[in-house]
């Protein structure tokens, strides 16, 4: 219900969608509405993307608007820059976040800096979509969650939806944003759940987190696939009489500091959950935000339940890399019983 407040435009009708269908729907709407929209990437045409995110789009809009590119990430991002500064609104799919690295130079030195380097004479309103995260038994390198390579990059925004509603709304917001936006799509959640999603156009504001569970003893902060883990942990904690509040960050840059500080000042305890490695993970930024805004409120050291400082292991061991509800519950108990 609260969601409806964020909806703009046609909202009466909703439809059951998975997260991936919601992503597809967002692109379909903007392809229809805005002729500047152009989708490009590897295998996104006839094949509809390796996860079917662009299923049916080339058929509907033509192969000059939904374009299969050569296998060349720097080429995809580099030419998207040219398209974007020259009036188009490219949405580039990177097949997996683990394959974005060849384009890192283009993103770091141009996508994120052209506005500044040209004093806004040229801008790059483009979207980069990338499936990410572990837990689907994919081959190596396919499971990285290196979001901080982009949150430590002034000039770009980073969002990460955990559910179909946010996925559609955030992707539409990203496609309409005047600045480049990286949309991280948790593969694990692509088809894990269906939800009611408005069939019309709406957007979810970039830069705003959301309380997805209210509670009073401790705040769990997570995003993407880790929301499910947080929710399970919160259930288990509830059985032990501990009341958890959960924040779904939704945007990783610029981060919603207010929602974090308000919640912490209420609950006085925090557990942060993310897949990425502990060192350098976004969790450390959140610790800093709490330090900066809520030092005197904090009753226990903040716990971070994260991936370890190791490459994401091969899939037989990935469950031992990823945060689990059990690990989160231990973190919760630790902060509560400090």
């Amino acid at each position, binding site marked *: 219900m609260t969601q409806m407040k964020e909806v703009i435009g046609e909202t009466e009708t909703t439809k059951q969608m998975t997260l991936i269908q919601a992503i597809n729907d967002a692109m379909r709407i903007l392809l229809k509405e805005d002729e500047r929209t152009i989708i490009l990437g590897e*295998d996104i045409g006839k094949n509809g993307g390796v996860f079917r995110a662009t299923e049916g789009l080339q058929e509907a809009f033509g192969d000059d608007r939904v374009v299969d590119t*050569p*296998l060349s990430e720097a080429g995809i991002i580099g030419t998207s820059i040219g398209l974007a500064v020259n009036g188009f609104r490219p949405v580039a799919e990177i097949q997996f976040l683990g394959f974005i690295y*060849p384009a890192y130079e283009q993103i770091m030195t141009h996508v994120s800096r052209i506005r500044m380097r040209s004093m806004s004479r040229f801008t790059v309103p483009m979207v980069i979509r990338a499936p990410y995260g572990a837990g689907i*038994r994919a081959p190596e390198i396919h499971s990285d969650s290196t979001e901080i390579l982009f949150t430590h990059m002034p000039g770009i925004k980073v969002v990460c939806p955990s559910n179909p509603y946010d996925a559609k709304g955030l992707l539409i917001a990203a496609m309409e944003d005047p600045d480049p936006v990286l949309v991280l799509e948790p593969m694990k959640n692509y088809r894990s759940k269906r939800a009611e999603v408005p069939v019309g156009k709406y957007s979810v504001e970039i830069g705003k987190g959301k309380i997805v569970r209210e509670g009073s003893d401790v705040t769990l902060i997570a995003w993407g696939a880790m929301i499910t883990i947080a929710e399970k942990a919160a259930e288990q904690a509830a059985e032990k009489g501990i009341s958890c509040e959960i924040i779904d960050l939704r945007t990783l840059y610029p981060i919603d500091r207010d929602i974090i500080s308000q919640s912490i000042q209420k609950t006085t305890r925090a557990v942060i959950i993310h897949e990425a490695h502990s060192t350098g993970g976004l969790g450390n930024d959140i610790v800093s935000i709490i330090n900066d805004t809520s030092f005197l409120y904090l009753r226990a050291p903040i716990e971070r339940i994260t991936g370890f400082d190791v490459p994401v292991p091969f899939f037989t*061991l990935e469950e*031992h890399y990823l945060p689990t509800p*059990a690990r989160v519950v*231990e973190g919760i108990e630790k902060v509560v019983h400090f």
Partner: protein
Amino acid sequence: MTDNYPVKRVIDDKGNLIDERFKEHISERLVKELYYHMARIRAFDRKAINLQRQGRLGTYAPFEGQEAAQVGSALALQADDWVFPTYRDHGATITFGKSMTRTFLYWNGRVEGCVAPANRNIFPPAVPIATQLPHAAGAAWAEKRRGSKNAAIAYFGDGATSEGDFHEGLNFASVFKVPVVFFNQNNGYAISVPIEKQMNSETIAQKSVAYGMPGIRIDGNDCFAVYFETKKAFDYAKGGNGPTLIEAVTWRRGAHTTADDPSKYRSDELGKKIVDPLTRIELFMKTYGYWDEEWIRATSEKLTNEIDRAVEEMETFPPPKVEDVFNHVYAEMPAQLAEQKDAYFAHLGRQ
């Protein structure tokens, strides 16, 4: 350009020699070896697909149709050469000496599957496309610097030619004139993207011009052409003449991986005119008197046994060790990683 880079062949689609003079270079031993390894890796490949369907293997990348390219090139290697394969080149690596068991393990999400025997320099398969080309150039450079007669081979697909690392790898290899063979399997597709959308050049071989290195185009389904031309490129490399780019024109008969559905992007018609490389060598063997029913039967039985044993070994392989999540990241585990490990084991102990 196709005139400059004609497709070299030794046998035609019906298994007949293009030129009778090739005959003297073809020993019975070679014929049998080529056949044996092609049959062997095909059986492996089919078994892997079956296992995947039965849920006994993870997502798998089949190579059916590319056996001549993989076996022909792998047999041209010597024991101390270096191999830098992709995820689709386990036909080549198994032929060169990697264990089938380990290969199955790889596709079952086991890092143990990356480990080649100590006497074979086989790199873990490159997953990020084209990244292995500079590695091969570097390993070959090391051989050159120490004055050995070893060389390196890098396997890669048609799609890989679009990546910057393809270009940088070939450029380094040519500038430093290192003993490396860049062995391209042009199977027509990079997942769903056909070669016409991948590049505007008619051939991959012509890309050698950019590096002033020899480029040759061969029928990748003709195991003899592959074997002889790869051998030639190795001789050239080991003779101190530098790298060669080989384009082996072939065809992926199956899906990109078991998670892929080629009917979405490719009509069945397309592959029909391409004669299967195993059929080609069978026809050749029959025509030229190498077909020995008894040997074929024995071979087939032997291979079935070998593969069954490998499956069993894979399935009874000791389970993954949780500590391997933490090991092998550094030679010596940094204190903070050791702490993470200890904390996690303590946690497991409490569960």
